[in-house]
């Protein structure tokens, strides 16, 4: 035992001892501990001290000084020991009572525990992922600036949305913003002491550290001169530094290579400092002025100036945008009606997770409500069964206050145990969720942990619930008429109507809440099934994909295409591989879009040109993915750089720009320069995700545009498990270039699943909560029905004795117990109709009022409710009339 451990035991003794003796007792303990520690060692002395402390508590608390026996005086030691004695007595009594009803205790503790665990997990996740994902101080003053260009159909975006000139406009023109920085992003190959990694990188104009409000954990940030000159210095993210370079502090200051060029690593970012997941920061080597005004591939970060609010910023950004439109609108049409919008950096990142987060919070709030109702019902029921016992105790002289305190002690004890169980379960749950999240590619550096706030919240809920649940039954118990209760022959019949009414009301609430949650879960499951059933338009299973970026410093343009061609050809020869191809993008994450011109269509003004997703693919792309050919032919190996340029369009592009005509043989100018002849039409794929309609897409061959792409995806169609071939693929890459990293390794099926992370989280959680709610409602209904049967045992016995048939008894009980279910059900249906519109953002091909879902849920609930009252009803119907009439005597 440590020194603090000893102090704790001594403190316990000091607390129990009367003030007059405290110093003497503590002195004795300390003196004797020293003697023992010297002779027998600390461990033995500590054990002795522990034993002494524990065994001394009771005698010390029982000390009643003859001289200060006035227990009414609150400050007298006697008064305190009396209160403590009572409390201990209450606790002991509680322990014995609860020990006699283990099933009841288990039920209450589990109910509270699961409710608190669900709350703990959800609050931890929402706090860590949505409310507070970043470690930056004053997060509500750190803003990103997004922009929208309605003229070219660009909605508000915060990713590659602003040009260098626009950054300068904001930096120099906006007085409501300060520390404005901008960055570009791309992949860089980093070699440190012979280890090569491909890292997603950010290139900065301006010092991001003061903007974010953090400082490097190792080394330093960029100096003003380095930023100005675009010096060859680099900063690593904390996660890469620890996970891949063993948190080696000697790396700072070490020479490294970035795309083969010598750099110096000058610092390491603090933990969780991830700006769009960039792991390597470099100064931007080119000045903003060197870029065209509409080269929009940058992002902006800034701090609100002192005294400025987001509204001020947005008002000023509007003025700025209008000024730019006036100055440059004539030469750059996309400026017409454009807008800039500032949003907190947290909002920028978690916008997409918000909906799921608030659905979870709402659902878990309902679960908590349900837990409270359920426990209240259980305790009420239990108090009913103890009316006689309490009446006897009051008749024997127990004060009402004493009885109330005893009942409160019981419920608070239950709540505290439930709270402890809940926090334990919650802790396990948080761990499980963290593990699950790491596999779900949630685009947030947020950490999920049980914060003090969450724990405090849980403790508060547990205690509050205990007091709340305890007070009602306690008051009801002491208000009752002692003599009446004791005299009542039926033992429990009198005065129980009111309580049963309260319990039925609680059941109605439970049913309503369960119905709402189940409907929400049902709608999401229905949507999820619809999404799963979507045909991607190709064979999405068994395709492994990965990305390779060739460093431009090491690969001159003419060597890039041969590398990728050789790679795909060799991988295709591997055992277990049935095909291989490379492409600049692939479903479900097609993102590069270009404007083009259709030959023969009246060339309208520049900004009205149609745009489509344009993909550069190797000839085997369509066969590897299993995309069907509709007309003409696909890209061929014979389409080479010197031959006539050809393109393939998908059905969506054909329908959009060649309605009613055969596109084969027509020509397109992609990017406005070269003319491509359309040689074929292929089937649509769900190229931007399972939930979006197939978008028009144009394909050109890597062989005809060999110099344009240094960054391509490798697609591998496998015969068996996709990851089985990864080792072989890596060997091929290594044999071609030992220093070339591969990254972003995953299957296409995983990519589709990741695009549905939010949907899956919401669906899983709401379904779990709905199931929990159903269980709680069933328990509530069962409890009330059982109790109704127990209370009417004599009456039922009488009825049976007088000739009532069992079926009649059964109906009587079921009918009575189902009435609150019906009422709750009606209220629940009203709520369920509203929950759909709340969930609309996550519904897919399912209306917010979905007949089949609601019907299923109502039937399920009705079935469970019926079962829950049928079991006690059957018990009632089987009562032997003689036993029933004897009951309670």
């Amino acid at each position: 035992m440590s020194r603090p451990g000893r102090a704790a035991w001594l403190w316990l003794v000091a607390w129990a001892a009367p003030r007059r003796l405290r110093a003497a007792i503590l002195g004795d303990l300390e003196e004797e501990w020293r003697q023992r520690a010297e002779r027998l060692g600390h461990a033995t002395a500590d054990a002795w001290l522990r034993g002494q402390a524990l065994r001394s508590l009771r005698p010390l608390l029982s000390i009643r000084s003859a001289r200060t026996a006035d227990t009414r005086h609150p400050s007298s030691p006697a008064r305190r020991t009396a209160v403590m004695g009572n409390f201990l007595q209450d606790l002991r009594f509680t322990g014995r009572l609860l020990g006699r009803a283990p099933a009841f205790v288990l039920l209450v503790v589990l109910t509270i525990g699961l409710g608190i665990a669900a709350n703990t997990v959800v609050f931890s996740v929402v706090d860590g992922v949505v409310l507070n994902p970043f470690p930056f101080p004053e997060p509500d003053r750190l803003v990103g600036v997004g922009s929208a260009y309605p003229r070219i159909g660009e909605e508000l975006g915060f990713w590659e949305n602003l040009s260098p000139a626009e950054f300068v406009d904001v930096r120099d023109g906006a007085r409501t913003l300060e520390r404005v920085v901008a960055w570009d992003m791309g992949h860089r190959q980093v070699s440190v002491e012979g280890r090569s990694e491909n890292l997603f990188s950010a290139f900065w104009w301006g010092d991001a550290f003061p903007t974010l409000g953090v400082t490097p954990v190792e080394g330093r940030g960029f100096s003003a001169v380095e930023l100005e000159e675009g010096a060859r210095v680099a900063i690593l993210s904390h996660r890469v530094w620890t996970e891949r370079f063993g948190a080696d502090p000697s790396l700072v200051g070490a020479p490294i290579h970035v795309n083969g060029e010598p750099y110096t690593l000058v610092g390491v970012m603090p933990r969780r400092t991830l700006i769009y997941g960039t792991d390597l920061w470099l100064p931007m080597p080119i000045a903003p002025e060197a870029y065209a005004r509409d080269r929009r591939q940058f992002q902006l970060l800034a701090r609100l100036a002192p005294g400025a609010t987001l509204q001020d910023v947005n008002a000023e950004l509007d003025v700025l945008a209008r000024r730019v439109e006036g100055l440059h609108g004539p030469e750059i049409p996309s400026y017409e009606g454009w807008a800039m919008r500032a949003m907190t950096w947290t909002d920028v990142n978690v916008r997409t997770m918000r909906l799921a987060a608030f659905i979870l919070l709402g659902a878990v709030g309902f679960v908590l409500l349900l837990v409270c109702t359920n426990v209240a019902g259980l305790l009420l029921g239990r108090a009913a069964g103890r009316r006689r016992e309490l009446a006897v105790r009051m008749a024997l002289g127990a004060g009402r206050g004493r009885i109330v305190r005893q009942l409160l002690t019981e419920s608070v004890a239950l709540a505290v145990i439930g709270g402890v169980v809940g926090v334990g379960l919650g802790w396990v749950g948080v761990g499980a969720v963290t593990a699950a999240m790491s596999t779900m590619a949630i685009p947030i550096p947020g950490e999920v942990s049980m914060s003090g706030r969450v724990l405090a919240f849980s403790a508060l809920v547990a205690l509050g619930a205990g007091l709340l649940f305890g007070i009602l039954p306690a008051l009801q118990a002491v208000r009752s008429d002692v003599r009446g209760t004791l005299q009542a022959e039926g033992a429990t019949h009198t005065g129980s109507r009111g309580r049963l009414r309260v319990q039925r009301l609680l059941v109605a609430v439970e049913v309503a809440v369960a119905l709402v949650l189940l409907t929400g879960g049902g709608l999401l499951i229905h949507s999820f099934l619809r999404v799963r059933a979507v045909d991607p338009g190709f064979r999405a299973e068994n395709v492994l994909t990965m990305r390779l970026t060739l460093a431009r410093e090491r690969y001159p343009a003419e060597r890039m295409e041969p590398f990728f061609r050789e790679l795909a050809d060799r991988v295709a020869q591997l055992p277990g591989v049935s095909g291989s191809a490379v492409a600049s993008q692939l479903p479900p994450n097609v993102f590069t879009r270009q404007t083009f011109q259709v030959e023969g269509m009246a060339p309208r003004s520049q900004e009205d040109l149609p745009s489509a997703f344009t993909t550069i693919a190797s000839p085997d792309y369509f066969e590897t993915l299993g995309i069907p050919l509709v007309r003409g032919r696909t890209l061929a190996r014979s389409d080479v750089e010197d031959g006539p340029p050809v393109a393939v369009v998908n059905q969506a592009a054909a329908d959009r720009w060649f309605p009613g005509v055969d596109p084969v043989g027509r020509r397109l100018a992609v990017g406005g320069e070269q003319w491509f002849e359309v040689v074929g039409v292929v089937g649509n794929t769900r190229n931007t995700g399972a939930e979006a309609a197939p978008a028009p897409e144009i394909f050109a061959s890597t062989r005809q545009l060999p110099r344009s792409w240094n960054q391509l995806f490798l697609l591998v169609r496998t015969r068996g498990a996709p990851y089985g071939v990864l080792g072989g693929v890596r060997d091929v890459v290594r044999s071609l270039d030992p220093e070339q990293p591969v990254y972003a390794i995953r299957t296409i099926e995983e990519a589709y699943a990741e695009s549905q992370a939010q949907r899956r989280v919401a669906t899983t959680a709401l379904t779990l909560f709905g199931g929990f709610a159903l269980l709680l409602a069933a328990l509530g209904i069962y409890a009330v029905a059982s109790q109704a049967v127990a209370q009417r045992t004599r009456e039922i016995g009488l009825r049976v004795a007088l000739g009532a048939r069992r079926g009649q008894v059964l109906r009587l009980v079921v009918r009575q117990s189902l009435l609150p279910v019906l009422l709750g059900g009606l209220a629940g249906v009203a709520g369920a109709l509203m929950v759909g519109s709340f969930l609309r953002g996550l519904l897919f091909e399912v209306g917010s009022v979905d007949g089949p879902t609601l019907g299923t849920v109502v039937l399920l609930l009705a079935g469970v409710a019926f079962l829950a009252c049928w079991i006690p009803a059957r018990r009632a119907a089987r009562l032997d009339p003689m036993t029933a009439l004897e009951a309670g005597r």
Partner: protein
Amino acid sequence: MSRGEHLGEFEQIVLLAVARLGRDGYGVTVRQEIQERTGRAVAVGAVYATLDRLEGKGLVASFEGQPTSERGGRARRHFHLLPAGARALDASRRMLAAMWDGVELA
């Protein structure tokens, strides 16, 4: 002797320990004296609860000594037997002796 002035077994043991220790009686020595003679490892809290009760009955008296460092700067509380305590012990012994008189246990 009224009912409240009967000594319980543990009260007798504690009183006897105080009597045996004379001027040296305080918590630690009383506890150790009892443990050595009876083999019972008693809790310091139980000793004090009894001493407090005995003091309340006017059978022992106590006074505070000097604080010492090996006690963490806390003072000892010394206990000594009062004449009433000696009489009560004597009465207990006589009562027991009277009860034992002529008893032979097999």
